[in-house]
Each structure stands twice: as structure tokens, then as C-alpha cells.
């Protein structure tokens, strides 16, 4: 007890290093891991064996179909591509030639072939916009400006008519840009409406406005999107005075905005509800007006809280744009379906559907990873 601290230290240092015993092999290492996680009980073992068998069979079958027996190109006949070799192996091997021949049509629809670099740049701009919006260092007021500039640039690129680019009408737009336009413009316009509706629904002093907001949200959320799209394509012309007629794409876009605004409003409302009342009262104490309080205190906090569910809503919304297939707008699903309705390529829809599924999956998976990452980050800061 009386030994000085330094002596203890030196005594410890002079001891020979203890020989560490390795833990037994059935506690660490791959075998132990497999025993604990795959073969812990006889029941677990049975599940593992069945699953391994099923996975092996399915993946071997898929590889055989998609790679080993697949045909990648077909010879060009007198009247277009000759698909007889593909038809011979139908069901045994995939015919990826349909993607090679048709990918330009699937991605860009009937856009003039020589001008298709324009929608290609638009797709790149959209992706860039998503990436910039996802980065937290850009979460500031200037982001709105970036959105306006990029969306305007996309409009210029798609329509053309300036800078020596020939004009291209909306009726021949198609493919992936349409999907991205419908979802992105839909979100951009729906978001401000959603914030206003959510605020209106939360207001206690304006019962009439609250009633209108509740009616709007509940009516839109109560019916399927399809019926709104039918409404846009069938009823919208009836609503307009004689001679005024909007383009079909624009009508669908309006339907999407109304639809998305109702769903986003509920997400925003959840964020508003999560804020403690004291925030509003503190604003009152400072003598701020309603809009000052809302703009400077409430919304910045409430919106930050609901970013993960907002991203999830955006994913759902992105997938829902495929519904325009039913009213005949050329989004990427429609162009894919039309590509395989040609007599030459009829019957190769599996390949095209897989291609489309990969495109949708890439976008949605990226967004959902991002959303769950944010969720983890936010919950970590809350858990401290």
C-alpha cells in the first residue's frame, strides 16, 4: 500500500508479457459463427438447408437463363432485326438483344433520334440535382435557387427552340425523362402547397380554412391515384372554357401535384405536431408575427424532423408515376411495354421488365438507403 505509484508501474512493466490463450475454436471463427447463426437448433438447421437448396437452384437457373444460354445480339435482316434465333431458345435463354436494339426507345421514347442527347443531359441534371439536394451542406436557402435554375435548364433542353436546338413538342417526349419530370416537378410544386395545407390544417383560429384543408387531404387520400388521373384526362377538358385545352402531360402533372400535396401535407403535419408548443409561445413572446414565427422558428425545425418520411413519400411518388401508363403517357414503363408490343420483339417482355425493374430499383434503392441513413443519424443525436 505504501509503495509509490512509480514503483508499481515499473514492477508491472518488468513482468513478462502473459501468454494469451486463444479462445477455443468453437467460440470464434467461421465454424463457430456458422454454428451459432445457421445451425443453432435442429429447426434452424432445417431452414438453412432448405434455403440453401432453394437459393442454389434459383440462382443456377437464373444464371443459365440470363448468361449461359442468353443471346446478346441478333443479325440484321432485310426488314429489321431477325429474331428467329431468340425465338428458338425462348424459355431456355434470355434475349438481351431486345435491350440492345430498343434501349434508346425505352429511355427516350419518340424524342427525335439525333436530338436524344438533350433528354440524356436532362436525366444527368436530374440525378445531379438529387445528389446536391441530398448533401447536408447544401441545405440552405440557396438550394431553392439551384432547383429553379436546374428545372428551367431542363425545360429549355427538352423544348429547345433556342440556342440552335430545334423545337421538340411535348407530345413526343417520352421515357425516363418523363418519369423524372413527373416526379420531380410534381414534388417541387406539391411541396409548397403541402406546407400551406399542413399549416391550415393545424390552425385553430381559422376554422373555415381548416375545414377546407381537411376536406382536401381526406378526399384525395381516400381515392386511388388512378381515379385522379382519369379525372385529369377525362374531366379536366370539361372544366375548362371552350377552346382552352391543356396538353395531356400537363394535366397528368397537375393531378400528380394535387395527389402528392395531400400526402406530403400529412407528413409535414406530423412534423408540426412533434414540435413542442413552447416554440410557438417563445415566438409570441418575441412579438413575431404568424408568418415570421412559422418561417423562422417552426418550419425549419419541423421540416428537418420529417426529412426521412419525406424521402419515403418521394420514393412512393416516384414509383406511382408509372401509373400514367394507364392514361397513355409515354413514361419509361409505357415505352418499355410498347417496345415489346412490336411484332418483332413480341414475347420478350421478361427481359424488358427486368431492365425497367433495375432502373426503378436503382433510383428507389439509393433513396431508401439515404433515408434510412438519415434516420439513424437523427435518432443517434436524439438518443444522446
Amino acid at each position, binding site marked *: 500500500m505504501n509503495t509509490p505509484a512509480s514503483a508499481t508501474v515499473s514492477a508491472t512493466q518488468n513482468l513478462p508479457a502473459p501468454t494469451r490463450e486463444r479462445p477455443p475454436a468453437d467460440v470464434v471463427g467461421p465454424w463457430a459463427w456458422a454454428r451459432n447463426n445457421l445451425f443453432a437448433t435442429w429447426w434452424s438447421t432445417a431452414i438453412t438447408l432448405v434455403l440453401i437448396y432453394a437459393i442454389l437452384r434459383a440462382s443456377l437457373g437464373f444464371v443459365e437463363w440470363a448468361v449461359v444460354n442468353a443471346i446478346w445480339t441478333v443479325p440484321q435482316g432485310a426488314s429489321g432485326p431477325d429474331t428467329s434465333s431468340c425465338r428458338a431458345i425462348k424459355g431456355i435463354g434470355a434475349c438481351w438483344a431486345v435491350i440492345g436494339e430498343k434501349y434508346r426507345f425505352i429511355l427516350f421514347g419518340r424524342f427525335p433520334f439525333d436530338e436524344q442527347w438533350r433528354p440524356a443531359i436532362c436525366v444527368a441534371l436530374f440525378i445531379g440535382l438529387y445528389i446536391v439536394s441530398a448533401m447536408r451542406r447544401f441545405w440552405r436557402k440557396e438550394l431553392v435557387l439551384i432547383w429553379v435554375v436546374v428545372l428551367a435548364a431542363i425545360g429549355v433542353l427538352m423544348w429547345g427552340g433556342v440556342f440552335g436546338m430545334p423545337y421538340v413538342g411535348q407530345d413526343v417526349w417520352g421515357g425516363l425523362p418523363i418519369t423524372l419530370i413527373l416526379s420531380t416537378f410534381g414534388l417541387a410544386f406539391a411541396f409548397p402547397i403541402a406546407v400551406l395545407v399542413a399549416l391550415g390544417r393545424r390552425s385553430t383560429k381559422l376554422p373555415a380554412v381548416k375545414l377546407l384543408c381537411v376536406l382536401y387531404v381526406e378526399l384525395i387520400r381516400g381515392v386511388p391515384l388512378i381515379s385522379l388521373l382519369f379525372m385529369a384526362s*377525362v374531366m379536366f377538358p370539361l372544366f375548362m372554357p371552350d377552346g382552352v385545352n391543356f396538353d395531356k402531360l400537363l394535366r397528368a402533372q397537375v393531378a400528380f401535384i394535387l395527389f402528392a400535396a395531400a400526402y406530403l401535407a400529412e407528413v409535414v403535419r406530423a412534423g408540426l405536431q412533434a414540435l413542442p408548443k413552447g416554440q410557438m409561445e417563445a415566438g409570441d413572446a418575441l412579438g413575431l408575427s404568424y408568418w415570421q414565427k412559422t418561417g423562422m422558428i417552426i418550419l425549419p425545425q419541423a421540416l428537418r424532423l420529417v426529412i426521412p418520411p419525406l424521402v419515403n413519400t418521394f420514393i412512393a411518388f416516384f414509383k406511382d408515376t408509372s401509373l400514367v401508363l394507364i392514361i397513355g403517357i409515354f413514361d419509361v*414503363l409505357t415505352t418499355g411495354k410498347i417496345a415489346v408490343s412490336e411484332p418483332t420483339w413480341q414475347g420478350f417482355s421478361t427481359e424488358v421488365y427486368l431492365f425497367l425493374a433495375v432502373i426503378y430499383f436503382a433510383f428507389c434503392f439509393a433513396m431508401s438507403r439515404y433515408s434510412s441513413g438519415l434516420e439513424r443519424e437523427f435518432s443517434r443525436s436524439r438518443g444522446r
Partner: protein
Amino acid sequence: MSGAKADPRFATTAGPPRRRMQLRWSDPNFRNLVWQIVVVGLVVLVIGYLVGNTSRNLAARNIATGFAFLGRVAGIPIGESLIPYDPATSTYGRALWIGVLNTLKVAIVGIILATILGTLVGVGRLSKNWLLARITAVYVEVLRDVPLLLQLLFWYMALQSLPAPKQSFHLLDYVYLSNRGFKLPVLVWQEAHSWAALAALAGIVLTWLWARLATRRQELTGRRPPVWPVALLLIVGLPVVVWATLGAPFTLDKPVLRGFNFQGGATLSPEYGALTLGLIIYTAAYIAEIVRSGILAVPNGQWEAGGAIGLHRGAVLRRIVLPQAMRVIIPPLTSEYLNLTKNSSLAVAIGYQDVVSIANTTLNQTGQAIEGIAYIMAVYLTISLSISLFMNWYNAHIALVER
């Protein structure tokens, strides 16, 4: 704080005295009133403008508004229907009603099977078996990230590329799978079967009463009288006895291949199959996530506490963990059921005649766009409200009872 009640400063906490509204901009009550009048006025103006345009347009196209068209002969060919329908004589009203029934047929079967599959997948994601947990995670992630419409088109194509009836898969006796759908024999319904069904119903009611009695007895004496044998006897035994005493009639309507298609038996069409299958598989991925988060929301200490008072694992799950998890699960599950019902409207893309599809055909034939859309909205709002009401009732039933 006990003295606070006597304190005159707190005597008037009922609120500030009501002030008369002043007709000045500085009065917040007046401002609120003006803003509300402005907003409502604008909405009324816009709606009035649209209604005016619409009535002019309808008059120009000679379309009479109103639901009189429901009584006219429809002439829409309908492939599958739960009630008798003849395109030559049946009315639009009947056609639309068939649409509603077809929607319900998809929604009810879809909700039940999606719940079962979703629960299995959700529990699988929490499994200690690494492989099972990974596979179910991949299932959830992939299915949620591909649009439902694309999945439906895929399933429809897969069911359509099955072999023709002559080469159909012969699964069991009189059960065939071909590109004309799934064929299976059905029981020819006779009076004895109705009585047996009635007996089964009575058995269920009696079992429920017996279970309540058993619970009361358990609370009094600590011993629970057997319930399962009694339930088996009442629900299965009773109808069988009734059926046997009435002569045990049993004839099957079997599907038989005649020419290029089957005759007789019951059919699940490829359209119905693809729609229901797609909806179940897609919605199950969402339900799985809901179930998983619900189970994770119950703290581990609940399991341990259950073990400490001597309950076995199954009893802990049934009596302690699940009731608590249900409170977390029910509200999002309700909205998932509503989504499934609304998503069933994608039937129109693969040619299954649900209410949206038939209403769409109707409004194309008659030009009654507003009535058609109004009908769709009314149907879905009714279904949504019924599901919400039921789930809210159930939620209140299982909710935590607090002081």
C-alpha cells in the same frame, strides 16, 4: 400550491373576458374573419367557375347530368362476376355493382393473405438464423423498390405464358393450371350444406361463450378448463354430425377439358390471379416492416420479466409481447390495408374488371365522366371509411387503458 385556489389572481383562470370584435385591422379576430372570408370566397369562385364551364361544355355535347344512365342497358362484356350478369339485358347499375364486388373480392383475399405473408416475413427478418434474416431483408428491399404496376404486368405475363388448356399442368385430380387460369372442382351446394354451415356458425358462438366461461373459471379457481378439445368438437364435430344425419350429400362439379377449354368447375382467372398475387407480394413487404418494427418496439425487459414470473416463451409472446406490439402495429397496418384496397384499382392495366375499370368503360360509353368519377370516389371512400372504422374500433379495443 394548495393555497393557489384561494389566491384571487388565479380566480379568473377561466380565460380572458370575451371582447367584442372591433371592425379594425389591428383586431386579430377581425383579421382572422377577413382571411377566412377571402379564402372561402376564392375557393367558391374557382369552383363556381369550373362548374359553370362544365355545365356549358356538357350542354354543348348534349350530355344529361344525373344518374339516370344507371338504369340503361350496359352491353359491357364482363368476364368474371359473382352475381348473374348478361350484357344484353343488364343495366349499368348492375355492371358497376359487379365492379364493386370484384374489387372487394381482391381486397379481402389480398388483405388476409398479405397479413399472413407479411407477418411471416417480418418475423423472419428478426430470426436468429442469419440466412433467413438476410433473405427476408432482400425480399422486402427489392419488392418495395419496384413499382407495383411493373410487378403486376410481370405476374400477368407470367400467368399468361403458362401452357394452353390441352397441355395444362395437372396438379391434383381435377385441379388444372393453364393460361386460362386456375381450375378446381367445387362442391354442388345443397340444403344439407347450408344446415352444416349454420351448425358451424353456432359452434363458433358456443366456443366463444365457452372460452369466456373458461376465463372466468380460471380467474376464480386458477385452473383453466380445456378449451381446444371443446372448440374442435363444436366447430368441426357438430357440422359433420348435422351433415351426416341429413344424408351426407357430396357431389363435385369437376372441370373437364372439352375442345380448347375447360367446362364446369370454378375458375380463378389469370387476371384475378395476377392482381391478387402481385398485391399480396407487394403489400406483404410493407406489412413485414410494420410487424418487425412493432416487435422491436417492445423492450427486451418484457421478455425477461415474463420469463421471471415463470411463463414459457410462447405464453410470453402471446400474453405479453404481442398485445404491446399490436398497439404499435395497428395504425400503420390500417393505412397499409387502405393502400392495398386503393392499389387494387391498378386492375385496369391488366384487364381485371374492378370498379375503376368498369366505371371507366361506362364513362367512355356514356360520356358521364363526372358521375363515373363520383361513383369511383364514393365507392373507395366508403371502403376506406369502413376499414378505418373497423381498425379504429379494434385499436380502441386493444389500447392501453390508462387512468
